[in-house]
Every structure is written in C-alpha cells, then in structure tokens.
C-alpha cells in the first residue's frame, strides 16, 4: 500500500474544505483535536449529534473550521454564553466548547464560573498553554509566576489560576486535567466528559513552542513535552506528597465526577408544569 492510499481513520470527521491549519508546527492543539474526534468515534456518536462552539485564540481553531459539524466560532471569551443558548434550544445535542485559557479564564472567566454554577450540560475543553499565543506571547492568567513574557519583560508578578480548582469552587460536576503527553488518557476522559449530564470541564496543559517556549525559555516542543512527562503527578500520588514537593508539578487525572440536577432538565420539568402537561 502506498502512502498516498492511506487515509486517517478520523478523516471522515474533517470538513472537506478545511485543507490547512492555522496552528504552528509543534503546537499541542493537534493532540486534543484528534482526542476529541477519537472519543466521539469510540462513543459511536455522529458529528450531527454534537454542536461545537469556540471562542477566540489558537485553540478555538480546533473545531473551527476543521470539524465537519455544526460549529459556532464566537467572540473572545464568550463561547460558553453562546453555548448556553444553543443547549437551551437543542437540549438533545452534545454541546462542546473548545477554547483556550485566555479566552475561558481571563476575558470569559465570568461565563465559565456561572455555567459551572448552573450545571448546564455541556463539555468545555480548555487548552491551557499558559500564554496568549495568537497575539504573540503575552502573559495570561495561567502563566506561572516569574516567567518572562512580552508583556512581563521583568517577570510575571501575578499568581496563576488553578483552573480546575476554580471550576470546582464554582460547582462543576466533572473536572479533569491532562497534558498533551497523555493523549490516551485525554480520550478516555473526553468520553466521560461528553457523556456527563452536567457541566464537564477538561483542562489540557499544552505546549506552545513558538510563543511560550521560545519567549519564556521553556524550550521547544520536545523539551516542553518532556517537562510534562517529568512533572506530571497523578491525583493519588499528589495526595501523598508534601505541598513543597508539589511546587511546579502538574497534578493530572479526574478530580471531580459527581451528580447534581442539570439545568436544562430542571427547566424542562418546570416548563411541563407551567404548561400543565406534566
């Protein structure tokens, strides 16, 4: 079989007119892009069962335009708010938001915590590369303290968010974190997250070799993924480690998987009562 005859098993999920990617060589986005499609494939879902929503930034280009599905590419920070209206209108669809740490936790932080609080059934994949990649490497609410970026030339003076802790505090019913070093784990987690009847949040710590690695001194793709490999600790292992041992570590795994009444279902029951049809 010649190499030209080989077709990627997930190619059927890619929009025919989407021939190129805007992402840089070595970007971590491709790992999540494939993992989400792999999860959908393994779940036996069709793309027509899903609606994808993205914001602004490099990772928002994971579903848009590449996924051959209904895709709404929204304004900066607002994908979750748009997704809320979509879910209310189409309660039977899997509404899946894919965006970045800047989009979801800086400009869009309010929508993230409120969607988690409401427990509206949607899945949010957050690519956390710790930087504003698309605009050229500015500090983000997720950039580790001390790192040099183009807008923190003397070092980042601010503390980063632990996004999983943030959405936990806000009430999300499914929360997980992996890195791009963990593609198989992401697929497994994504399957659970997509099926979750509630607000599910998956953070994927991801390398941006061009705007993060180069400017902060964290190195190239291989070096950054090596860093994830060396510094990722599972939740179980982290539990037995002292706080000072956890400094600089990335705790990975599924943090939360609980049941709470889901918003759209609850509203549906109230509607039936108001209509007098229950």
């Amino acid at each position, binding site marked *: 079989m010649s190499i030209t005859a080989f077709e990627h098993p997930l190619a059927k999920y890619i929009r025919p007119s989407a021939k190129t990617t805007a992402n840089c060589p070595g970007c971590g986005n491709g790992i999540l892009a494939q993992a989400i499609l792999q999860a959908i494939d393994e779940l036996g879902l069709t793309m027509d069962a899903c609606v994808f929503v993205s914001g602004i930034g490099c990772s928002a280009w994971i579903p848009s335009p590449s996924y051959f599905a209904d895709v709404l590419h929204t304004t900066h920070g607002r994908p979750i708010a748009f997704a809320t209206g979509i879910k209310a209108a189409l309660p039977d669809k899997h509404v899946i938001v894919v965006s970045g740490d800047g989009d979801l936790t800086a400009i869009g932080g309010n929508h993230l915590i409120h969607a988690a609080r409401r427990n509206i059934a949607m899945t949010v994949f957050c690519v956390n590369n710790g930087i504003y990649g698309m605009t050229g490497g500015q500090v983000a609410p997720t950039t580790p303290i001390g790192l040099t970026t183009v807008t923190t030339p003397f070092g980042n003076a601010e503390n980063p968010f632990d996004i999983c802790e943030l959405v936990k505090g806000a009430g999300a019913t499914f929360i997980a974190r992996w890195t791009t070093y963990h593609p198989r784990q992401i697929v497994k987690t994504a399957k659970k997250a997509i099926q979750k009847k509630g607000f599910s949040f998956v953070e994927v710590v991801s390398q941006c070799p061009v705007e993060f690695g180069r400017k902060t001194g964290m190195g190239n793709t291989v070096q950054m993924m090596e860093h994830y490999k060396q510094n990722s600790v599972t939740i179980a292992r982290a539990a037995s480690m002292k706080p000072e041992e956890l400094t600089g570590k990335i705790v990975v795994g599924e943090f939360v998987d609980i049941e709470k009444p889901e918003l759209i279902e609850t509203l549906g029951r109230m509607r039936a009562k108001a209509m*007098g049809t229950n």
Partner: protein
Amino acid sequence: MTKSAVLTGRHFMMGNIATAEGALAAGCRFAAGYPITPATEVAERLAERLPEVGGTFLQMEDEIASIAAVIGAAWGGKKALTATSGPGISLMLENIGFALGTETPCVIVNVMRGGPTTGIPSVELQGDVIQPRRGSHGDYQIIALAPSSVQECFDFTVDAFNFAERFRTPVFVLTDAFLGHMREEVLVPEPEAIRLTDRNLFPRGVDTEALPGFLDTDVAPMPVFGNGHKAHVTSSCHDAYGRRNVVDASALDVFIRKLNDKIEKHRDEIVRVTSDIEGAEIVLLSYGSIFRCARAAVEVGKSEGLPLGWFKLETLWPFADQEIAALAERVKRIIVLENNLGQMFHYVQAAAAGKAQVSFLPPRVLGELHEIEDILKAVREVRQ
C-alpha cells in the same frame, strides 16, 4: 391546559408588558436578560410567560452573556429576544456586531433611560437612537423601530421579529422609560390576524459545503444547527459558504458590502413613516414617545390656524432619507422634536438638503415630554 401565546382581547397594559406579549405573539420562545431599570418588566413577564408556552427564559450573568445566549438560541432554531437599557446595550454591542456578521435573526429591546453612562435609570430620554446604527465597530446596516404607544410596543415588537426573520439580522426596538412604564389600552388580535414571518430554512439533507448559506443580498436560507447541515458559522470575514477568509482583502470587501446591501436593497420593504401634512407649511418631525407631543401640538396649533403637520418615523434605521427628501420638497419648514440634544436631527437636516429649513427644538433633558405650549411657541417664532 396549554396557555395561549397570544392574549387576544382588550387589555390595560404597561408598555414593557406589551413588548413582552408582542414577542410571544411573534413566536419568541427564548429570551435571556439581566436586570436593569427601566427594562426589567420585559424579562419578568417573559420569565413567567415563556415556560407556559413551551419556551425558556434565562437570567444570565451579564448583558454580554444575555445577547450571546440569544444568538446561540437563534442558531438552535428559536426566535429569541433580549431586553435591556442603555448600559446593557453598550455591553452587548460587540456581540450585536457578531449577530450582524453571522446573519443571526434576533430582537434587542432598548428601553432607553437617562444617560450617558449610568445616568438616571428611571428617567426617560431618547439618547440611544444613533447607538444601534453606529455602536458596534465597522460598517453595517441595521433595522430599528420606534414605538410611540403601548399598542405600538406590542405591534412593533411583532414587526421586529418579522424583519429579523425575513432579513436574518438583529433588529432593535427602541422604547423608553416613559413608554415602558406607561399604561394604555392594547388590543391583541386573534392569532390568525397576526401576520408572522419565519426564516427561510436551509434545505433538509444538504450541508453547507454544497450550498451557500451566507452573504446573499436576497437573504440566504439559514442553516440552523441540529439539522445535519454541518454549518460553519463565523463572524470573521467569510464567503457565501461560511468559509473563513482572513487573508484576502477583496473577500472583506464582498463580506462588508453584501451585509450592507442586504438591508439597503430592501429598504423600501422596511422603512416606515406616517404623516399628516395636508396643507402644512411647517411640519413637526418626531418619533417614539415624543411623537405624542408633536401630534398633540399639531392638533392644538391647527385649531389656532397655524399651518402645521406632523411626520412620524416608525423606523429609525434604515433611515427614511428618501421620504424626508420628498417631505422637504413639499413644506417650508421641518422642526425636529426628540428627547435628546439633537441626534436624528442631523440626519434629517442632511436628508432635507436645504430644500426645507430644518431646525431642532431642544428639550430640557429632564425626562419630561415636551410641553405643547413650548412647541407652539417655537412654531410661532419660526413663522416670523
């Protein structure tokens, strides 16, 4: 028993309630909002009534989220609305531009209050009439209606949904604190007597790779989500298939022009003015709540033998420039009445192009309606 979306009959109703009922009668089944004076009653009414008719109301975390959810619901196939006041509109403007760029039908109600900035929430002014036209960044055309009675709050909200559906675009309803909180008689027709327009839908079983769903000046069929159209919807510069193109400036030229022309081309279908200028030399041009003063002043002035007429803008945008140009050919003088420091006045002056003298009667910006005697005094002055 399922409750009716159309409350056929005679009612004594508050303007904001009539707006909400107009939305329901038009088929609105999703609304999202955030509390703000003097618009809150619209949301309160919809929160109670939407579930009764199978719809959903969500109180969001802010106005940005409210308009975003409305746009999302519109792509989910719903007729959707948000209601707010000036500060809320200011927050929504980016996403209103998104709705324009993605050709999303939705209705935005602005119950105008005393501004700028936080101003006085409970005071009526017409300070936000240019905002829909130019508030969001970039070039675009928009539709805005201005009711002048509680009945028109109902009727024009129905019209707003029809325009939104017909032209796949956000449509403004500009009421104000005075109208919103005023109570008047409203006649709600039988459901069959309410003319409704529904968006032209993308053909079943077809995806947007095969058929264009955007940028048609005669309005492309809408590939709403959930029907297997696999629509790619972006507010970034795109082609007729929704394919993003941010590298070719000529694509941007097409993108901007098609969206503008979609409204411009059909302006005769949209622009609505009414008038009584029989035998008039001087015409009081007005809109919204202040039109009531203009009409009353004409009635009183005519009884005194003044050669007066009135001209009412029912749509503010697209602007009735042709209609005003024709008016300027027929009369000597146009006096513009509006409850602000002169906003539409400049557009009226430009449209009249010197054919008639156009002046502005500055109100005291106290959130009051114009005194009829003040208006007539101005009329007598310009006659001299």
